[in-house]
Protein backbone atom coordinates (compact mmCIF):
# COMPACT_ATOMS: atom_id res chain seq x y z
CA UNK A 1 0.00 0.00 0.00
CA UNK A 2 1.40 3.34 -1.09
CA UNK A 3 1.85 6.07 1.51
CA UNK A 4 3.02 9.67 1.15
CA UNK A 5 5.24 9.26 4.16
CA UNK A 6 7.43 6.77 2.31
CA UNK A 7 7.43 8.80 -0.86
CA UNK A 8 8.70 11.85 0.98
CA UNK A 9 11.51 9.82 2.53
CA UNK A 10 12.88 8.62 -0.78
CA UNK A 11 15.49 11.32 -1.23
CA UNK A 12 16.78 10.79 2.29
CA UNK A 13 16.86 7.10 1.52
CA UNK A 14 18.97 7.74 -1.56
CA UNK A 15 21.40 10.07 0.21
CA UNK A 16 21.76 7.75 3.20
CA UNK A 17 20.05 9.94 5.76
CA UNK A 18 17.60 7.42 7.21
CA UNK A 19 18.03 5.37 10.32
CA UNK A 20 17.89 1.61 10.04
CA UNK A 21 14.23 1.25 10.82
CA UNK A 22 13.09 3.75 8.21
CA UNK A 23 15.60 2.36 5.79
CA UNK A 24 14.03 -1.09 5.97
CA UNK A 25 10.55 0.34 5.64
CA UNK A 26 11.45 2.16 2.47
CA UNK A 27 13.33 -0.79 1.05
CA UNK A 28 10.39 -3.12 1.58
CA UNK A 29 7.92 -0.60 0.25
CA UNK A 30 9.92 -0.10 -2.93
CA UNK A 31 9.63 -3.78 -3.75
CA UNK A 32 5.86 -3.58 -3.88
CA UNK A 33 5.02 -0.06 -5.02
CA UNK A 34 5.57 0.76 -8.70
CA UNK A 35 4.67 4.41 -8.09
CA UNK A 36 7.44 4.87 -5.60
CA UNK A 37 9.77 2.85 -7.78
CA UNK A 38 9.23 5.45 -10.50
CA UNK A 39 9.85 8.31 -8.11
CA UNK A 40 12.94 6.55 -6.89
CA UNK A 41 14.38 6.26 -10.39
CA UNK A 42 13.73 9.91 -11.09
CA UNK A 43 15.31 11.02 -7.84
CA UNK A 44 18.35 8.87 -8.48
CA UNK A 45 18.82 10.59 -11.84
CA UNK A 46 18.64 14.00 -10.16
CA UNK A 47 21.06 12.93 -7.47
CA UNK A 48 23.54 11.87 -10.17
CA UNK A 49 23.12 15.15 -11.99
CA UNK A 50 23.57 17.07 -8.76
CA UNK A 51 27.01 15.61 -8.34
CA UNK A 52 28.09 17.89 -11.17
CA UNK A 53 27.49 20.86 -8.92
CA UNK A 54 30.39 21.27 -6.63
CA UNK A 55 31.70 24.20 -4.75
CA UNK A 56 33.54 26.91 -6.57
CA UNK A 57 35.76 28.20 -3.84
CA UNK A 58 36.18 31.90 -3.21
CA UNK A 59 39.74 33.18 -3.17
CA UNK A 60 41.74 31.98 -0.20
CA UNK A 61 41.93 35.45 1.29
CA UNK A 62 38.22 36.11 0.97
CA UNK A 63 37.09 35.05 4.42
CA UNK A 64 39.64 37.25 6.12
CA UNK A 65 38.09 40.28 4.43
CA UNK A 66 34.62 39.74 5.87
CA UNK A 67 35.06 40.89 9.44
CA UNK A 68 37.04 44.08 8.71
CA UNK A 69 34.37 45.19 6.27
CA UNK A 70 31.56 44.44 8.70
CA UNK A 71 33.38 46.40 11.38
CA UNK A 72 33.96 49.28 9.05
CA UNK A 73 30.29 49.48 8.26
CA UNK A 74 29.38 49.21 11.92
CA UNK A 75 31.64 52.11 12.78
CA UNK A 76 30.64 54.29 9.87
CA UNK A 77 27.48 56.23 10.48
CA UNK A 78 24.56 56.23 8.17
CA UNK A 79 25.21 57.26 4.61
CA UNK A 80 24.27 60.87 3.96
CA UNK A 81 22.19 59.64 1.01
CA UNK A 82 20.06 57.60 3.36
CA UNK A 83 17.38 60.17 4.03
CA UNK A 84 17.19 61.08 0.40
CA UNK A 85 16.92 57.44 -0.55
CA UNK A 86 14.00 57.13 1.81
CA UNK A 87 12.11 59.86 0.08
CA UNK A 88 12.76 58.35 -3.27
CA UNK A 89 11.74 54.91 -2.22
CA UNK A 90 8.47 56.34 -1.03
CA UNK A 91 7.99 57.61 -4.49
CA UNK A 92 9.22 54.37 -5.97
CA UNK A 93 6.95 51.97 -4.14
CA UNK A 94 3.72 53.27 -5.61
CA UNK A 95 5.62 53.56 -8.83
CA UNK A 96 6.58 49.93 -8.70
CA UNK A 97 3.03 48.96 -8.00
CA UNK A 98 1.67 51.01 -10.85
CA UNK A 99 4.34 49.60 -13.12
CA UNK A 100 3.20 46.11 -12.27
CA UNK A 101 -0.39 47.08 -12.87
CA UNK A 102 0.50 48.69 -16.12
CA UNK A 103 2.39 45.74 -17.43
CA UNK A 104 -0.44 43.45 -16.57
CA UNK A 105 -3.03 45.68 -18.12
CA UNK A 106 -1.04 45.92 -21.32
CA UNK A 107 -0.67 42.18 -21.42
CA UNK A 108 -4.27 41.50 -20.58
CA UNK A 109 -6.22 40.22 -23.55
CA UNK A 110 -8.64 42.93 -24.61
CA UNK A 111 -11.38 40.43 -25.23
CA UNK A 112 -11.54 37.83 -22.53
CA UNK A 113 -15.15 36.87 -22.97
CA UNK A 114 -14.52 33.51 -24.60
CA UNK A 115 -13.78 30.36 -22.70
CA UNK A 116 -14.63 31.98 -19.42
CA UNK A 117 -16.29 29.08 -17.67
CA UNK A 118 -13.40 26.85 -18.42
CA UNK A 119 -10.88 29.07 -16.72
CA UNK A 120 -12.92 29.94 -13.65
CA UNK A 121 -11.44 27.10 -11.70
CA UNK A 122 -7.98 28.21 -12.69
CA UNK A 123 -8.63 31.79 -11.68
CA UNK A 124 -9.67 30.45 -8.35
CA UNK A 125 -6.40 28.56 -8.13
CA UNK A 126 -4.48 31.70 -8.92
CA UNK A 127 -6.36 33.53 -6.21
CA UNK A 128 -5.12 30.99 -3.75
CA UNK A 129 -1.49 31.65 -4.60
CA UNK A 130 0.61 33.59 -2.15
CA UNK A 131 2.16 36.84 -3.20
CA UNK A 132 5.45 35.04 -3.62
CA UNK A 133 3.89 32.49 -5.91
CA UNK A 134 2.34 35.17 -8.03
CA UNK A 135 5.50 37.17 -8.37
CA UNK A 136 7.42 34.05 -9.10
CA UNK A 137 4.87 32.91 -11.63
CA UNK A 138 4.89 36.26 -13.34
CA UNK A 139 8.62 36.40 -13.26
CA UNK A 140 8.87 32.92 -14.69
CA UNK A 141 6.36 33.66 -17.33
CA UNK A 142 8.17 36.83 -18.17
CA UNK A 143 11.50 35.16 -18.59
CA UNK A 144 9.99 32.36 -20.63
CA UNK A 145 10.41 29.54 -18.18
CA UNK A 146 7.42 27.32 -17.60
CA UNK A 147 7.69 26.23 -14.03
CA UNK A 148 3.96 26.50 -13.83
CA UNK A 149 2.32 24.33 -16.39
CA UNK A 150 0.36 26.91 -18.32
CA UNK A 151 1.77 30.43 -18.08
CA UNK A 152 -0.87 31.86 -20.34
CA UNK A 153 -3.58 30.81 -17.98
CA UNK A 154 -1.64 32.10 -15.03
CA UNK A 155 -1.12 35.51 -16.53
CA UNK A 156 -4.74 35.60 -17.56
CA UNK A 157 -5.73 34.75 -14.05
CA UNK A 158 -3.54 37.45 -12.67
CA UNK A 159 -4.97 39.93 -15.08
CA UNK A 160 -8.41 38.98 -13.84
CA UNK A 161 -7.25 39.71 -10.37
CA UNK A 162 -6.10 43.11 -11.32
CA UNK A 163 -9.56 44.12 -12.30
CA UNK A 164 -9.86 44.43 -8.55
CA UNK A 165 -6.69 46.54 -8.70
CA UNK A 166 -5.75 46.17 -5.05
CA UNK A 167 -4.26 42.83 -5.57
CA UNK A 168 -0.62 43.47 -6.34
CA UNK A 169 -0.44 46.29 -3.85
CA UNK A 170 -1.79 44.02 -1.20
CA UNK A 171 0.44 41.22 -2.30
CA UNK A 172 3.50 43.39 -1.92
CA UNK A 173 2.39 44.74 1.42
CA UNK A 174 1.61 41.26 2.62
CA UNK A 175 5.12 40.28 1.77
CA UNK A 176 6.49 43.12 3.82
CA UNK A 177 4.35 42.22 6.79
CA UNK A 178 4.93 38.52 6.69
CA UNK A 179 8.66 38.89 7.00
CA UNK A 180 9.15 38.64 10.72
CA UNK A 181 12.87 38.57 11.13
CA UNK A 182 14.17 40.76 8.40
CA UNK A 183 12.55 43.97 7.39
CA UNK A 184 11.24 43.24 3.97
CA UNK A 185 12.62 46.45 2.59
CA UNK A 186 10.59 46.24 -0.56
CA UNK A 187 10.69 49.94 -0.01
CA UNK A 188 14.34 49.73 -0.70
CA UNK A 189 13.96 47.56 -3.76
CA UNK A 190 14.70 50.43 -6.07
CA UNK A 191 16.20 52.78 -3.56
CA UNK A 192 19.48 52.83 -5.42
CA UNK A 193 17.94 55.26 -7.85
CA UNK A 194 18.49 58.97 -7.59
CA UNK A 195 15.80 61.49 -8.31
CA UNK A 196 16.76 61.89 -11.91
CA UNK A 197 16.56 58.17 -12.50
CA UNK A 198 13.21 58.01 -10.82
CA UNK A 199 11.98 60.71 -13.17
CA UNK A 200 13.31 58.73 -16.07
CA UNK A 201 11.44 55.68 -14.90
CA UNK A 202 8.30 57.69 -14.48
CA UNK A 203 8.43 59.13 -17.96
CA UNK A 204 9.29 55.71 -19.33
CA UNK A 205 6.16 54.36 -17.76
CA UNK A 206 4.06 57.22 -19.03
CA UNK A 207 5.22 56.48 -22.52
CA UNK A 208 4.21 52.88 -22.15
CA UNK A 209 0.84 53.90 -20.87
CA UNK A 210 0.17 55.91 -23.98
CA UNK A 211 0.73 52.94 -26.27
Amino acid at each position, binding site marked *: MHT*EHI*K*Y*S*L*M*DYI*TGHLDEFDLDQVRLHLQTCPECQN*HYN*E*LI*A*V*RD*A*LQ*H*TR*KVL*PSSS*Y*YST*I*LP*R*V*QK*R*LMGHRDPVWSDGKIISRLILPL*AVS*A*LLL*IFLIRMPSDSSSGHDQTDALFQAVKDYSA*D*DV*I*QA*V*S*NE*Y*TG*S*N*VLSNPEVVSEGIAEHLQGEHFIREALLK*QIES*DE*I*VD*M*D*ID*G*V*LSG*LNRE*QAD*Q*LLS*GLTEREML
Partner: protein
Amino acid sequence: MSVSNDLELVESFQKGNEASFNELVRRYQEKVYWIAHRFVNDHDQADDIVQEVFLKVYRALNDFRGDSGVYTWLYRITVNISLNTIRKQRIKDFLRIDEFFEYPSEESEQPDKQYEQSEQKQLIEEAIQRLPEKQKAVFILRYYEELPYEDISKILKTSVGGLKANYFHAVKNIGEFVHRAHRAH
Protein backbone atom coordinates in the same frame (compact mmCIF):
# COMPACT_ATOMS: atom_id res chain seq x y z
CA MET B 1 31.61 24.17 17.85
CA SER B 2 29.28 23.32 20.71
CA VAL B 3 26.00 25.13 21.18
CA SER B 4 26.79 26.24 24.70
CA ASN B 5 29.91 27.95 23.46
CA ASP B 6 27.89 29.94 21.00
CA LEU B 7 25.52 30.90 23.73
CA GLU B 8 28.39 31.94 25.96
CA LEU B 9 29.65 34.16 23.20
CA VAL B 10 26.28 35.79 22.89
CA GLU B 11 26.03 36.35 26.61
CA SER B 12 29.51 37.73 26.72
CA PHE B 13 28.62 40.14 23.92
CA GLN B 14 25.54 41.20 25.81
CA LYS B 15 27.74 42.06 28.75
CA GLY B 16 29.72 44.37 26.54
CA ASN B 17 32.46 42.19 25.13
CA GLU B 18 32.56 43.20 21.48
CA ALA B 19 35.23 40.66 20.65
CA SER B 20 32.65 37.90 21.08
CA PHE B 21 30.89 39.17 18.01
CA ASN B 22 34.11 38.86 16.04
CA GLU B 23 34.41 35.28 17.14
CA LEU B 24 30.87 34.54 16.01
CA VAL B 25 31.67 36.00 12.62
CA ARG B 26 34.78 33.88 12.27
CA ARG B 27 32.89 30.83 13.37
CA TYR B 28 30.01 31.18 10.94
CA GLN B 29 31.24 33.24 8.02
CA GLU B 30 31.99 30.26 5.87
CA LYS B 31 28.62 28.61 6.48
CA VAL B 32 26.75 31.84 5.92
CA TYR B 33 28.64 32.46 2.72
CA TRP B 34 27.86 29.02 1.38
CA ILE B 35 24.19 29.11 2.15
CA ALA B 36 23.95 32.54 0.55
CA HIS B 37 25.90 31.35 -2.43
CA ARG B 38 23.55 28.42 -2.93
CA PHE B 39 20.67 30.83 -3.00
CA VAL B 40 22.04 33.38 -5.43
CA ASN B 41 24.72 31.42 -7.25
CA ASP B 42 26.91 34.48 -7.49
CA HIS B 43 29.92 35.49 -5.44
CA ASP B 44 29.30 39.23 -5.27
CA GLN B 45 25.69 38.83 -4.27
CA ALA B 46 26.61 36.18 -1.74
CA ASP B 47 29.21 38.52 -0.33
CA ASP B 48 26.62 41.29 0.02
CA ILE B 49 24.37 38.87 1.86
CA VAL B 50 27.16 37.87 4.22
CA GLN B 51 27.72 41.52 5.09
CA GLU B 52 24.02 42.12 5.64
CA VAL B 53 23.69 39.03 7.79
CA PHE B 54 26.44 40.00 10.18
CA LEU B 55 25.30 43.61 10.38
CA LYS B 56 21.86 42.31 11.24
CA VAL B 57 23.31 39.87 13.76
CA TYR B 58 25.32 42.60 15.44
CA ARG B 59 22.27 44.82 15.79
CA ALA B 60 20.00 42.02 16.97
CA LEU B 61 22.43 40.28 19.27
CA ASN B 62 21.40 42.21 22.35
CA ASP B 63 17.82 41.04 21.87
CA PHE B 64 18.76 37.42 21.43
CA ARG B 65 17.13 35.47 24.26
CA GLY B 66 18.20 31.96 23.46
CA ASP B 67 14.73 30.67 22.59
CA SER B 68 16.35 28.95 19.66
CA GLY B 69 19.91 27.87 19.14
CA VAL B 70 22.36 30.52 18.02
CA TYR B 71 23.02 28.71 14.82
CA THR B 72 19.37 28.18 13.86
CA TRP B 73 18.85 31.88 14.55
CA LEU B 74 21.80 32.80 12.39
CA TYR B 75 20.72 30.50 9.59
CA ARG B 76 17.26 31.92 9.72
CA ILE B 77 18.62 35.40 9.24
CA THR B 78 20.76 34.15 6.38
CA VAL B 79 17.84 32.47 4.66
CA ASN B 80 15.67 35.53 5.07
CA ILE B 81 18.22 37.94 3.72
CA SER B 82 18.98 35.58 0.85
CA LEU B 83 15.31 35.37 -0.02
CA ASN B 84 14.99 39.13 0.19
CA THR B 85 17.88 39.51 -2.20
CA ILE B 86 16.22 37.16 -4.64
CA ARG B 87 12.90 38.95 -4.34
CA LYS B 88 14.48 42.29 -5.00
CA GLN B 89 16.27 40.90 -8.00
CA ARG B 90 13.10 39.32 -9.26
CA ILE B 91 11.15 42.52 -9.01
CA LYS B 92 13.97 44.43 -10.65
CA ASP B 93 14.15 41.87 -13.43
CA PHE B 94 10.46 41.96 -13.80
CA LEU B 95 10.28 45.70 -14.06
CA ARG B 96 13.44 45.61 -16.11
CA ILE B 97 14.71 48.51 -14.10
CA ASP B 98 18.28 47.93 -15.13
CA GLU B 99 17.32 48.32 -18.73
CA PHE B 100 16.52 51.93 -18.12
CA PHE B 101 19.70 52.82 -16.37
CA GLU B 102 22.43 50.41 -17.16
CA TYR B 103 24.17 49.61 -20.35
CA PRO B 104 24.49 45.90 -20.90
CA SER B 105 28.02 44.81 -20.11
CA GLU B 106 30.18 43.88 -23.07
CA GLU B 107 29.43 40.28 -23.91
CA SER B 108 32.55 38.52 -22.79
CA GLU B 109 30.59 35.34 -22.39
CA GLN B 110 31.08 31.71 -23.18
CA PRO B 111 32.35 30.18 -26.38
CA ASP B 112 29.65 27.49 -26.39
CA LYS B 113 31.48 24.43 -27.55
CA GLN B 114 34.22 24.39 -24.98
CA TYR B 115 31.68 24.19 -22.25
CA GLU B 116 29.83 21.03 -23.21
CA GLN B 117 30.70 19.48 -19.92
CA SER B 118 29.65 22.39 -17.80
CA GLU B 119 26.37 22.64 -19.66
CA GLN B 120 24.84 19.97 -17.47
CA LYS B 121 26.16 21.78 -14.43
CA GLN B 122 24.64 25.05 -15.58
CA LEU B 123 21.33 23.38 -16.25
CA ILE B 124 21.22 21.96 -12.77
CA GLU B 125 22.19 25.30 -11.24
CA GLU B 126 19.44 26.96 -13.21
CA ALA B 127 16.92 24.38 -12.12
CA ILE B 128 17.82 25.05 -8.50
CA GLN B 129 17.66 28.80 -9.00
CA ARG B 130 14.17 28.49 -10.45
CA LEU B 131 12.67 26.54 -7.58
CA PRO B 132 9.93 28.26 -5.62
CA GLU B 133 11.39 29.96 -2.54
CA LYS B 134 10.29 27.51 0.05
CA GLN B 135 11.40 24.46 -1.89
CA LYS B 136 14.70 26.10 -2.64
CA ALA B 137 15.36 26.91 0.99
CA VAL B 138 14.51 23.41 2.11
CA PHE B 139 16.56 21.87 -0.66
CA ILE B 140 19.66 23.91 0.19
CA LEU B 141 19.44 23.26 3.90
CA ARG B 142 18.69 19.57 3.54
CA TYR B 143 20.67 18.48 0.52
CA TYR B 144 23.74 20.69 0.77
CA GLU B 145 23.87 21.55 4.45
CA GLU B 146 22.48 18.19 5.54
CA LEU B 147 20.69 19.74 8.48
CA PRO B 148 18.25 17.63 10.50
CA TYR B 149 14.60 18.36 9.75
CA GLU B 150 14.08 19.50 13.31
CA ASP B 151 16.59 22.31 12.82
CA ILE B 152 15.26 23.27 9.40
CA SER B 153 11.85 23.35 10.99
CA LYS B 154 13.07 26.00 13.43
CA ILE B 155 14.87 27.96 10.75
CA LEU B 156 11.96 28.08 8.33
CA LYS B 157 9.15 27.85 10.89
CA THR B 158 7.53 24.96 9.06
CA SER B 159 6.39 21.57 10.26
CA VAL B 160 8.70 18.63 9.62
CA GLY B 161 6.02 16.92 7.55
CA GLY B 162 5.72 19.98 5.35
CA LEU B 163 9.47 20.15 4.94
CA LYS B 164 9.70 16.58 3.76
CA ALA B 165 7.04 17.22 1.15
CA ASN B 166 8.86 20.39 0.07
CA TYR B 167 12.11 18.53 -0.24
CA PHE B 168 10.57 15.81 -2.37
CA HIS B 169 8.89 18.29 -4.68
CA ALA B 170 12.05 20.34 -4.96
CA VAL B 171 14.05 17.38 -6.22
CA LYS B 172 11.25 16.33 -8.54
CA ASN B 173 11.04 19.83 -9.97
CA ILE B 174 14.76 19.93 -10.59
CA GLY B 175 14.47 16.64 -12.45
CA GLU B 176 11.55 17.85 -14.51
CA PHE B 177 13.29 21.09 -15.41
CA VAL B 178 16.38 19.27 -16.63
CA HIS B 179 14.29 16.73 -18.47
CA ARG B 180 12.31 19.43 -20.25
CA ALA B 181 15.46 21.31 -21.16
CA HIS B 182 16.98 18.20 -22.69
CA ARG B 183 13.91 17.54 -24.75
CA ALA B 184 13.82 21.12 -25.97
CA HIS B 185 17.28 20.72 -27.47
